């Protein structure tokens, strides 16, 4: 796992409430309040999407919501910046292909 538990400056990581989120239908454990992209890295997932034309993998680039490299489809809504979107219990996330597809009619 890639979580930093001990840190010389920040101290021990405070225990967080665990929530389950689903990435491509696979359940993973995330920490309440953390960003989706962080939960993925903590679980060893580094690919957030594949590009439209060349189908190349992309991971995080700026991690502050500017570059949109980390966008994924979250609860049926494509193009969500996962580095600045918090996890929620039961959230369903899919590795986005190209521009993604809206999976919920009522969100259109």
């Amino acid at each position, binding site marked *: 796992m890639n979580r930093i538990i*001990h*840190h*010389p*400056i920040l*101290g021990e990581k405070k225990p967080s409430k665990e929530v389950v989120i689903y990435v491509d239908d696979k359940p993973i454990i995330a920490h309440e309040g953390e960003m989706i992209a962080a939960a993925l890295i903590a679980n060893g997932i580094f690919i957030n999407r594949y590009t439209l034309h060349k189908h190349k993998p992309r991971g995080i680039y700026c991690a502050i919501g500017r570059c949109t490299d980390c966008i994924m489809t979250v609860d049926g809504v494509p193009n969500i910046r996962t580095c600045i979107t918090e996890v929620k219990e039961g959230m369903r996330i899919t590795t986005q292909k190209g521009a993604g597809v809206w999976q919920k009619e009522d969100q259109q």
Partner: protein
Amino acid sequence: MEELHKSPAYPDRDRLYKGPIAIIECIEEIPCNPCEAACSNGAITIGESITNLPKMDFEKCVACGRCIPACPGLAIYIKDYTYSDTKALLSFPYEYYPLPEVNDIVEAVDRHGNTLCQAKVIKVRNPKSNDHTAVVTIEYPKEYFEEVISIKRIK
């Protein structure tokens, strides 16, 4: 090293080998002055312009070590050549996890991280006032007196 020897905070050879002394490796004019206030003996002077290099009054320095955690650049340490017949003493800032423990045998390194010799940890201080900059004291063979400035990160 040559630049370091020319800086107004680096002791001359006589003083360096005479007993415990604080050494400031700060040779660029950066806007910074917390070391000045950290010294209760008034041994360190920056002055009006905060980009001045620190000046050290080696007569006033009692090697108390308060300046070590105060320096945001972690550029101050204390050395004592007179510690024992064969060993010198070094106190330096350390901000990694885990901290070494007293009596640990650690690897002493030079400015480029090369391991030069083994050292024994004598003291580890990390009071709240240091704000997580621990001060570690090691003893190490005198022949490496000038080169050793820190230890290898413990993993």
